[in-house]
């Protein structure tokens, strides 16, 4: 009985999110456009997330390089360290780790902010005052996360590759020129573009899940925390699902 209720609740929530997403696509192309709010959200979600993403990417690139070295040394393929790290970062680790960081920072922020507005009836007040709260609050946030996460991914890739250069030089000696040559000799558009395109979907998922959870907050202040927490969990899960679908599609298209 409990299980059937859980399954039913899950299915209902999936339906609600799909309905919420449909409403977003209906609202996003309709005027009036909230440019100022979109820029403000982009600043918050993009620019202010950069330090966290940069530190994470730097550590990720450095650790990946240092951890991969012993295995490659065993095969006598130490010289392939730059290209291996570059391909790993660009194809998978950069987009996914950045998206997860954003899901933690941005998703929880959106969920908590919209949740608190919901429980304090500010959203209802906006409707009464004639402002479309969905357009002002949801569309701007979802569009900003959709556009900012790919930019953060590009920064993360660049920083992680630079960190990899430092990691390679901790135990070896490779010039920046050679490192740069090896990295870009190994990378092709098929490595970069699918990963870049899927980062838009990651950003969209973070924004839409955070907004949905915040917009549907119940149970007062307790629900705000719950919305914040569940938006991170669901967004992270959706990121992995999108990644799974993306890798299948790129494989079908022959880019793997």
């Amino acid at each position: 009985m409990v299980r059937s209720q859980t399954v039913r609740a899950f299915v209902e929530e999936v339906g609600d999110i799909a309905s919420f997403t449909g409403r977003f696509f209906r609202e996003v192309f309709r005027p009036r456009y909230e440019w100022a709010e979109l820029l403000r959200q982009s600043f918050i979600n993009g620019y202010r997330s950069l330090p966290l993403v940069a530190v994470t990417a730097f550590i990720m690139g450095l650790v990946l390089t240092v951890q991969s070295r012993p295995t490659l040394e065993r095969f006598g393929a130490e010289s392939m360290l730059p290209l291996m790290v570059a391909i790993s970062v660009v194809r998978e680790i950069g987009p996914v780790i950045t998206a997860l960081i954003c899901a933690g920072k941005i998703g929880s922020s959106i969920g908590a902010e919209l949740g608190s507005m919901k429980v304090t009836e500010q959203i209802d007040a906006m409707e009464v005052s004639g402002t479309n709260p969905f357009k002002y609050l949801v569309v701007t946030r979802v569009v900003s996360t959709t556009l900012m996460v790919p930019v953060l991914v590009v920064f993360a890739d660049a920083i992680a590759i630079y960190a990899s250069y430092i990691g390679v030089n901790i135990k070896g000696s490779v010039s920046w020129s050679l490192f740069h040559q090896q990295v870009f000799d190994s990378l092709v558009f098929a490595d970069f573009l699918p990963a870049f395109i899927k980062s838009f979907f990651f950003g969209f998922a973070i924004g839409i899940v955070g907004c949905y959870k915040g917009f549907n907050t119940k149970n007062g202040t307790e629900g705000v925390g719950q919305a914040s927490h569940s938006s991170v969990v669901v967004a992270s899960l959706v990121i992995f699902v999108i990644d799974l679908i993306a890798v299948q599609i790129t494989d079908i298209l022959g880019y793997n």
Partner: protein
Amino acid sequence: MAEERSQRSKLGLFVLGGTVLLVLALYLMGTRKDLFSRSITISSDLREVGGLRTGNNVRYAGIDVGTVDAIEIINDTIVRVYMNIRMDDAEHIRTNALASVGTDGLIGNKLVNLLSGEGSGTPVSDGDAIRSVPSLDTDAMIRTLDRTNGNLAAITDDLRQVSARLNDPNNLVGMLTDTSMGGVIREAVYQLNAAAGNARALTEGVNSIVADVEGGKGALGVLLADDAAEADVRRMLSELHTASDTLGLAIGRIDRFSRSLESDKGLVHTLVRDTALANDVQRMMTRLDTTTLLLNEDLRALQRNWLLRKYFKEKEKQAK
């Protein structure tokens, strides 16, 4: 308001930074794939490309000069590889160059190696086709290596057996290591030398005889060299042949005669084999002898008879 402008500036820098990085990354990747440089396209037909993909590097004399543009299956035995070659490098590649598929290092990406061909050729131009040579296939090399290892194992096993036999004092090699064998072999060699001298002398004698025969000397030489003698011999052989036929007939007759002698019928058998008849004949002959003596006396007496005296006297006169 000032804060909002500051936020916009920072956001602009952030987005511009990301865009610049994105464009730079795309440009660097595109440069590696010769998307932004002038290039020509050449092609080469290969039997198989071993996993070569579009975008793989093309190398000439160990230097990257372009990338693989497209790979097309022409028929069941030919795969055509189109290569973009940078214009600056194309002038060094001749039309007699050879293309082969290789690997960047042992486990690296596949690439096309362009090798200088023999003789002279003109620099390649757009649309040219160059010849190809079969590439080294790692799988084939490993298969060959595996077969070689098997052969080596067999050879090593044989060598081990040979070594064991070499160490055995009872075999030939063991005998050779015996110090007394030297004298024996030396004596054998002396004997062989003497035998060879004899054989040489014998051969010389045979040669001399053969020379004499060829020169028509001696009986054999005459037989072999003289035409008249040959005719005589042929005739003699012919007569011998006739004589042998006659002899054969005679032998046949004698055989039949002897058989008839063996037979218990007929007069001859009776004469030859019948001992009673022989006794009778002997007795008869004895009697005949006696009778003849008596008859002689009678005849002498008859000659003196007067009736016949005249006849005998006339016969004496005729005889005179």
